[in-house]
């Protein structure tokens, strides 16, 4: 089915069209959220919020950009909002830990190594995600979209609503900072 017609049908609250749309794009959305959040359960939850948002505000899609660009943009924003609210919750849970002992939920930094998997790779993955989370929000998103999603600078520029040059600067500086953070991490662990 043509995408334009599919979107028009979703705008008219056609559930079958929405199901087709979800089935087509859920893997993409889920993958972006998972790469940013580094937690599959959270990614599952946030990706569903992305589709709900799309269902509720499909009229705001003007068709100027590709549908995937719009999907990436909403996924990135939702994931970042979630990380922000998680930080706030973490502050409150740290108070909770003082009074109730250590029963707080795991953060990306606390991810335990999965048994049976290559311990070294898991440790490197953990270090990489800790370092990525320490980058600025923009650098993190640009690097994630460029490296994990294999998007071009032009596509990233459209998603982040910045210039291609800015994307290049973000990625170059982000990579350098990432290396420094990784060196610090391995130096201290």
């Amino acid at each position, binding site marked *: 089915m043509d995408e334009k017609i599919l979107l028009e049908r979703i705008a008219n609250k056609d559930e079958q069209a929405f*199901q087709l749309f*979800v*089935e087509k794009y*859920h*893997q993409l959305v*889920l*993958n972006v959220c*998972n*790469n940013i959040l580094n937690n*599959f359960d959270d*990614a*599952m939850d946030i990706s*569903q919020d992305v*589709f*709900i948002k799309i*269902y509720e505000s499909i009229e705001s899609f003007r068709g100027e950009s590709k549908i995937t660009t719009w999907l990436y943009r909403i996924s990135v924003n939702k994931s970042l909002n979630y990380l922000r609210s998680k930080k706030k919750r973490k502050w409150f849970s740290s108070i909770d830990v003082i009074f109730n002992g250590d029963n707080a939920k795991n953060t990306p930094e606390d991810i335990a190594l999965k048994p049976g998997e290559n311990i*070294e*790779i898991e440790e*490197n*993955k953990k*270090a*990489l995600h800790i*370092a990525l989370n320490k980058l600025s929000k923009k650098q993190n998103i640009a*690097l994630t979209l460029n*490296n*994990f*999603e*294999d998007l071009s600078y032009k596509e990233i520029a459209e998603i982040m609503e910045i210039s291609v040059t800015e994307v290049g600067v973000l990625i170059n500086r982000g990579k*350098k900072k*990432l*290396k*420094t953070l*990784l*060196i610090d991490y*391995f*130096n201290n662990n």
Partner: protein
Amino acid sequence: MDCKRVKRLLPDLDLNLTEDLQKKVKTHIDSCENCAKIYWKLKQSLDLLKPTTDVTEQAFYYTRLKQKMEHRIEFGNSLLSKIFSKKLVQPFIYLSSIILAVYVGILIGSSNPSFSSYSEIESGENINPIETFAEYNYLNDYEIETIENLITESDDEY
């Protein structure tokens, strides 16, 4: 070349370093176990920065999404959600915090001496507020005397 300098130069190793510096860093890495370990770990971590297909297609994704949407609609229509909605609760919290802050401020600011257990004024005593104010705020007794008194007193002295 020492370890500290090598670690500082490592991020630029394959990018901006001169050939001579690159050679020096690599020679150090070959001879230093700790720096070599960090170098290889850095390389392995950066190799993980590649397109991932960790997430596979989810069989019941739409069913779960539909459940969530229905749950949201139910909750959205319930009275509880309206009460606890951000639009209502947030202004209420802000307003009550402001009122509380103003009230505490007034309480601290208007600490009446007669309320204090350390006050020398007994309750029920007829208090002239101006005198009390002067007593507590001015050490000099002359401050509470009228100008006329002061003039006549000074005239008597001469």
